[in-house]
């Protein structure tokens, strides 16, 4: 197994700032917008984006929730891996709000497909956008594309893209791992 660094900490930070600015361009004061981090790994990115919006760009009252999609996945009983759930925490209604899904890696699009179903349990959003740090091009199973992307990557199926965060792995780095 070999791995190479796709993005180092500086590059990750530049990209996060750009993504935050792109969000501000489209959502201004975020009064009708809610951020939803997709469990399990999208929540780190979502928290970072929220922190940037609040601390650096001084936007108040940015709403952030976590959405777990385990019970909405389409591979229940089809995969050898047993699906374990994570916490969903959405303390606001999404009815008529602009929802921004945030996930670290967009691969087949099936997670986002599940998230689109799952979010309906919390109301009918006015619109849903997708922000991801890494967009794995040419690997989509469904017609789902990001509205905000950090970096587009052409990785083959045998390769894995792993995003590490200071919060859980001690560093902000994106790796491509050859399995």
């Amino acid at each position, binding site marked *: 197994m070999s791995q190479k660094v796709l993005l180092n900490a500086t590059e990750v930070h530049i990209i996060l700032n750009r993504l935050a600015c792109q969000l501000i361009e489209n959502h201004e004061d975020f009064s009708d917008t809610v951020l939803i981090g997709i469990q399990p790994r999208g929540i780190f990115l979502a928290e970072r984006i929220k922190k940037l919006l609040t601390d650096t760009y001084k936007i108040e009252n940015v709403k952030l929730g976590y959405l777990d999609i385990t019970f*909405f996945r389409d591979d229940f009983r089809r995969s050898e891996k047993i699906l374990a*759930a994570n916490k969903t925490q959405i303390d606001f209604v999404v009815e008529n709000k602009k929802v921004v899904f945030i996930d670290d890696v967009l691969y087949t699009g099936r997670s986002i497909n599940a998230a689109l179903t799952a979010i309906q349990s919390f109301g009918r959003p006015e619109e849903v956008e997708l922000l991801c740090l890494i967009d794995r091009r040419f690997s989509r199973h469904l017609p789902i594309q990001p509205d905000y992307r950090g970096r587009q990557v052409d990785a083959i199926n045998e390769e894995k893209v792993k995003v590490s965060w200071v919060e859980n792995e001690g560093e902000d780095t994106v790796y491509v791992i050859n399995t």
Partner: protein
Amino acid sequence: MSELSVKHLLGIKYITKEDIELIFKTADHFKEVINRPIKKVPSLRDITIANLFFENSTRTKLSFELAEKRLSADVINFSAAASSVKKGETLIDTVNNILSMKVDMVVMRHPNPGAGVFLSKHINASIVNAGDGAHEHPTQALLDSFSIRERLGEVAGKNVVIVGDILHSRVALSNIYALKLQGANVKVCGPKTLMPKYIESLGVEVELDLRKALQWCDVANMLRVQNERMDISYFPSTREYTQQYGVNKALLESLDKEIVIMHPGPINRGVEITSDVADSGQAIILDQVENGVAVRMAIIYLLASKIKQ
């Protein structure tokens, strides 16, 4: 661990502490789901479940049916009163006929102890025991422990007394297994005539004095007197039973601490528990009912994940 060690839930006797922890962790998520504006998830959309009730039930049947529907399973219901069982069909024949209709899971209540275990040796579908005679009622015990954990933080180390008709109660047996497995201290309390002979061999203490039992415990699980299972008279009168083993507000207020009151239902108000206790903040009876749906969703979800396509 993210998988149950068993294919069926026949009784608490057959599962592990880790299984219980996994069920509770999953039930936490389902409890959040059933408090959403839309309380349904699509996980089991290609699973069919048969609810076979060979004995009367209201809340267990409704709770299972709701749990199954909230997981998007297809559900068929069967009750013995309106079936060919009355015409002399055997249990295996009845179930095999239902399974021929491509059913993946069976939830069964049966008056005979061991009916679930017997069936598990003859059919392929996953079985959930929803009560077999005076033997086990595992989902009730799990939702009881889940409710204790919710109210008191954890089950381990807590003192729990089960009061009432221990002899005829499947809830008592399953609760004893579940509580002991999780490290709780368990006493049983009730008339000597309603106490099984070798109950101490399960690691529980017998306390015949209700006041002493309540003074000792953190949680009192009040059971109903199961008149329908009594062929002889086990105590002189209901009035005398209530005087000795009924819990009322005055008794609770005379204790040094506030204990948690549970009841698996149906309640005989004024017999084992008075209305002011049942409706008080100390009682978590309706929480138990709500948790029942979440716990049953977790059990069905985890068992269904083991049914391969």
